[in-house]
């Protein structure tokens, strides 16, 4: 990262976009304590995320991308484990886990060892554990990757209700359409720096966000030349 400065307004849905290797996952990792920055400050809902990690963690729910889960546990056992880690009472854990399993449609995944679950179901179980302790900030890395459209719609509805209730969602994604549909604000990261940030419409500047994104990161879309042997 290179002097990254990112502000997320509480109670909003904030998208982080950028090309592969731009630093999206590193940014998210730093915000939740999985990556230690060389310098700088991180504040999560008023808590110093570097010096007072416990307070910041207590209000944050995380769904990382590409990290393993306790693979020998079933989805239900993962939720039980997560509830225990967070010190939730048995009554609250039972109530919430049951509801999340129902709403996210993971009854089957809840009974299957995570090692044998599909990527989409793993995402949904991961999202359930991120929501279980009712955080005020949700940090989601590629939450809709490999999730079927019906489940994605349910998840979007849950997240929208969460934001409407005063919660904050930060998500990283490659889908500009998702950002346009769901996010209030967007930050575009390129080569470890913020190249644009603000309300989605403002950043898009009157053109489709995808076109604006290609402009901002200065990428040339290839594929127009060569390969004569393929296209005949």
């Amino acid at each position, binding site marked *: 990262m290179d002097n990254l400065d990112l502000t997320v307004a509480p109670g909003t849905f904030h998208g982080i976009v950028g090309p592969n290797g731009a630093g999206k996952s590193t940014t998210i990792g730093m915000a939740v304590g999985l990556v230690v920055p060389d310098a700088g400050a991180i504040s999560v809902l008023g808590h110093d995320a570097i010096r007072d990690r416990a307070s910041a963690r207590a209000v944050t729910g995380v769904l990382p991308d590409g990290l393993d*889960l306790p*693979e020998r546990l079933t989805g*239900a056992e993962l939720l*039980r484990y997560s509830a225990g*880690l967070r010190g939730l009472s048995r009554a609250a854990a039972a109530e919430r*886990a049951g509801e999340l*399993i129902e709403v996210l449609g993971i009854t089957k995944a809840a*009974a299957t060892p995570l090692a044998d679950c599909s990527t989409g179901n793993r995402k949904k179980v991961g999202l359930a554990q991120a929501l279980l302790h009712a955080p005020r900030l949700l940090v989601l890395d590629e939450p809709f990757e490999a999730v079927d459209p019906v489940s994605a719609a349910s998840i979007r509805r849950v997240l929208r209700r969460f934001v409407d209730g005063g919660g904050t969602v930060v998500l990283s994604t490659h889908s500009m359409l998702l950002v346009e549909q769901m996010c209030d604000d967007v930050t575009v990261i390129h080569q470890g720096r913020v190249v644009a940030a603000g309300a989605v419409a403002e950043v898009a500047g009157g053109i489709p966000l995808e076109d604006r994104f290609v402009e901002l990161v200065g990428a040339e879309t290839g594929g127009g030349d060569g390969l004569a042997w393929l296209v005949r």
Partner: protein
Amino acid sequence: MSAVLTPARMRATMFQRSLREHPGPAVAALTGLLTAGWLIRYGVYGNPHTLSILAGTWVLGWIVLPLMLGGGRGRVRPSHLRLEPVGSVPAAAGLLLASAVGIGPLVSLVALASLPVHAARYGFRGVLAAGAGALLLWLTGLIGSAFALETIGHAGGPVGAILTGVFTGAVMGVLGSVWAVASWITALLAGPPPHVVRWLPWFPGSWPLSAATGSPLRTAALLGGLVAIVVGFALAYLLLVRRSLVTGASWRPRRAPVSPTPSPSPSPARTGGRRLAGGWWGPGPVWAVTGRELRTWGRHPLRLQYLAFAVIYGALLAGLPMVADANLLVPWAGVFTALWAAAMSAGLVGLDGTALWMPFTTPDGERAEVRGRALAWLLLVAPIALALTVAGILLTPEVDPLPAIAVLPAVLGAGATVPVWVSLLRVRPVPDPRHPTSADNPTDIISVLVASAAGLLAAAAPMALIIWGPDGLRWPAPVLGLAAGAAMWAGGAWLADDRLATRGAEVLTAAGRRTRPPETPIPLTWDAAWYRENRATAWALILLMAGWIPVIPQGLMVLVLDIRGGWIVASHFTGATRTGTAVAMVALGGAVLLTGLVLWGRRPRPTA
């Protein structure tokens, strides 16, 4: 034709690369060739029945050992050809040809040459028959090994894992008690007992030498039997390859789905009308991690393998000396089991991949992670170790149980937390935490040594009191053992806490590093400039290869097999001097190998 040859070329390239990057294959080749050389020498003068048993056991070892020692790595597998337009017959032929490239097949071929060498005494026809039989045994080993690796080696099932642990534990237990079973080995080398000889004709390993001495009809029947075994294995392998190529599925045992609502437990967690899935876990973050760990111990194939290994190894190491009327170690079965269980737990974080992120995103999660792991280990190992100790004491009432009783709590305390710290210090992730195979082993020798040393250190205090304390004051030794165990628990927990608190992100990064960092390539031909620039690596290679000579032929083979020869230093002496020289040779070789390992660990690595 190219479909048959291409996998062999792929394998040759991978093999060449592994030779260039690591001394392991060269060391294995040297050790294997030394053993094969001894077998040929035994073939010249030895007993034919014993030679048949040794040859058959060699082939069996060739099939079984790669399952435990990571033989699946660097192999060309049927799944690699899944997208290629290759028929199953040429694919199977090509894959088997590729399997023939490597150290195991080469060394086995040399070892099995002991059969025609022995048959030379029966004339040309004998050599021919034994040679053909040896070749067929070699093919049995080659195809059997490929088949076993593709089925059991990649299956990762709990039963296979436990059996692997039992087998390795038994092998290590017998090797560790070799002084006790030496009389059996000596008797076997002189010739097996009559009841074994009676059953030997049913053992395919004996068929090549029987073919060398039998009538032409018997020779044809015995060689025909070996051909049938080879064809049987080849057909089974062909079916396996066809299944992999056609259906795209490798063989994997069915996993029974886990019930979402577990069977009724003593205290079903029923709250507010909704049942809490996942069974009983206990309250709070530490118990959450403990619950996760206990379930993982019960389901993870490698953890089950390690536990089975520790129990069998510990029990045999303590119990086998009874064969030689040495009962002193029997009450120590529990201590040994706890010690090995701790050593085998020194790489568990690597087995779990990056799953550590969950406690890292939870308030005070690191502390819960350390204590939960330690508590789960203790809950699992302590009852087993205690039961073995009690059984040992009951079996040998004439042996003073105080030392074992005093040391047990010390070893348990150290074994619970120190391996957690070690596995956080030296994270070696498995390639696929979701579906690990028995070929994956995230524990390295240094981690094992540190984890074991902690147990020994904890045991030192109560043992010192028992050995050097005044007679009347030996009885508090168990209390001292308990205190030493508690102190080691606290020390290990403190170190692990500190590691996670200050280097958590570093641990997580290491746990996610699935590809190896680039290695220093070792030239396969003489390159003076390279050796000048890489003196440490060159010395490491020399020491790692030369160190086996004092250990095996100069030491162990003298002690165990009583071999003699002009170049065997110990054979120029007799009695205690001879034994002392052989033991000194083992120690010298061990020191040379250790120095080689240290130098190898410190070799400069190229920048990526």
